[in-house]
């Protein structure tokens, strides 16, 4: 048997993951052409590299189709209900830092907190006849955060990209999105709510609690984790 390790299949996230493992004596590499999603693992026996979209890694871990996987905290928390029971956090990798935040237009000088947001949402609904729209792709995390804070009279509208542009385009009144430096927010005339941090995220190595492992797998896992310490 072999252990399957899922890693983001492209971009900086992949490169930094490769670097992180390399520093610990394990070389991950892509094989074949640039476009072929195949890879190999050197420096430890019995581990297969599976290249996947970062967004699919939580689901694959929860289904037990991969034993280990690298993906952001935000994706695991949003896509897996009761994630603690499905995956275990092995190590934060120290890159891919991103916060899921709530942001409103700069010109809303009367809005600084969730308190303000709630009051504005009520007034907005009365005035415009529909609930204040928040553009996001993190529906569950944002909804739970706002429910917990007691904010009402809003609606989530789905935005899978260019979320910060939705306010200017008037398809949403505000956004809930991932930011690392805040630059995109500023460029789009948006500002953070002072208490609107929904989640702090970074790239993290996870272990599936449901993937089947025999004794040989367990030995490989022990070996691998010892190297990663």
């Amino acid at each position, binding site marked *: 048997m072999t252990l399957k390790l899922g890693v983001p299949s492209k971009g900086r996230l992949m490169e930094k993951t490769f670097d992180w493992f390399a520093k610990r004596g394990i070389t991950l590499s892509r094989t074949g052409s640039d476009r072929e999603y195949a890879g190999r693992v050197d420096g430890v026996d019995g581990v297969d590299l599976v290249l996947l979209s970062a967004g699919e890694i939580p689901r694959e871990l929860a289904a037990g189709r991969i034993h280990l996987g690298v993906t952001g905290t935000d994706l695991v928390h949003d896509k897996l209900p009761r994630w603690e029971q499905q995956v275990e956090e092995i190590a934060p990798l120290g890159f891919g830092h991103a916060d899921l935040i709530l942001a409103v*237009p700069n*010109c809303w000088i009367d809005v600084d907190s969730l308190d303000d947001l709630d009051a504005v949402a009520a007034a907005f609904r009365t005035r415009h006849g529909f609930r204040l729209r928040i553009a996001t792709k993190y529906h569950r995390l944002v*909804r739970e955060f706002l429910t917990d804070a*007691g904010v009402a009279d809003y609606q989530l509208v789905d935005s899978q990209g260019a979320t910060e542009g939705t306010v200017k385009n*008037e398809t949403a009144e505000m956004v809930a999105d991932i930011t690392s430096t805040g630059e995109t927010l500023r460029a789009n005339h948006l500002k953070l709510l002072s208490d609107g941090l929904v989640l702090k995220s970074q790239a993290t190595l996870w272990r599936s609690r449901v993937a089947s492992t025999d004794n040989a797998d367990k030995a490989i896992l022990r070996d691998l984790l010892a190297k990663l310490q």
Partner: protein
Amino acid sequence: MTDRSQIAARAAQMRVRFEAAGAQVVDPPLLQPAGTLLDLYGEDIRARAYVTSDALRGEQMMRPDFTVPVVQMHMSEGAEPARYTYAGEVFRRQEHDPDRSNEYVQVGYELFERDDPADADAEVFSLFALQLRGLPLRAATGDIGILMAAVDGLRTTEKRKSALRRHVWRPRRFRALLDRYSGRSQIPEARQKLLTSAGDLTGSAVQIGKRSAAEIRERIELLRSDAAEPPISETEIHALETLMAVRETVPFAIEQLRDVAVDLPSINPALDRLEARIAALKARGVDVENLDFEASYGRTSMEYYDGFVFGFYAESRPDLPPIASGGRYDALTRQLGDGAEIPAVGGVIRPDLILELEESRS
């Protein structure tokens, strides 16, 4: 484990008993238009109901309860007074607790009646008590109307009162508002700055989005005029807190609430209605001397009740949700009535939980 046919048989039996009390059988569709439910509950309903869609009708929800469709049906075609009963599945998404069912049967009874609300409340409660007779259950009762009346009577601005009313069902936000309006919580720095800076504040920022500069200015005006208002008095806040903490058997609860009414006289009419209800319950044979009353009961569930509320709980099984629950929802008929309204009260029982209780007893 009880099987579905047993549950269906018990549900049918209970529905027949509600029919015998004069109710007409109704059977609303399983798929409900999502818009109505979203307007009522907001985004929170998405965490509780299954949403599906098609190209023609757009978003639909798997029926999360019967009350909304029954009210809609009554408001569009019902005669008065009316009694309805139903038995069927409801669907609830479960994202946190795998032991809770995502599909279960409810048997319900809804009463639309104008003339004697106290007796209507008592009719519904005693019918449920009768269906549940012999089971080791504790009945809890409450009355959201008393808290509403207390808010209405506060000596403060209408704006503050309507903000408080909006959050009666969200105790944490309600608490935060009270702290702010009573001057107990500090004014946040950003707010302080906004209140004290002179002149036009909207100058430098680029104006984007549908919320206009006029709306922003209007809210700043509002915040400034609110800041000039005196805080809600300690006496009233204290009375409101005492009210929310009342948790007693009915006779003692009434005594405590009448004490509160010395400082919050606006609740007296609501207390008169409570006493009329108690008398009506007593007349129907309910042991009101030992009936529990909690003034905050029904505030944490995402519901539409605005008056009498009740629930029946299995004392030996605190892990179970209420076996039956219900209440008065006059405001809901107004919201769904398109200008019309009618006082209404009703409730639901879960036959699956009854069977589970009976099994664990035998």
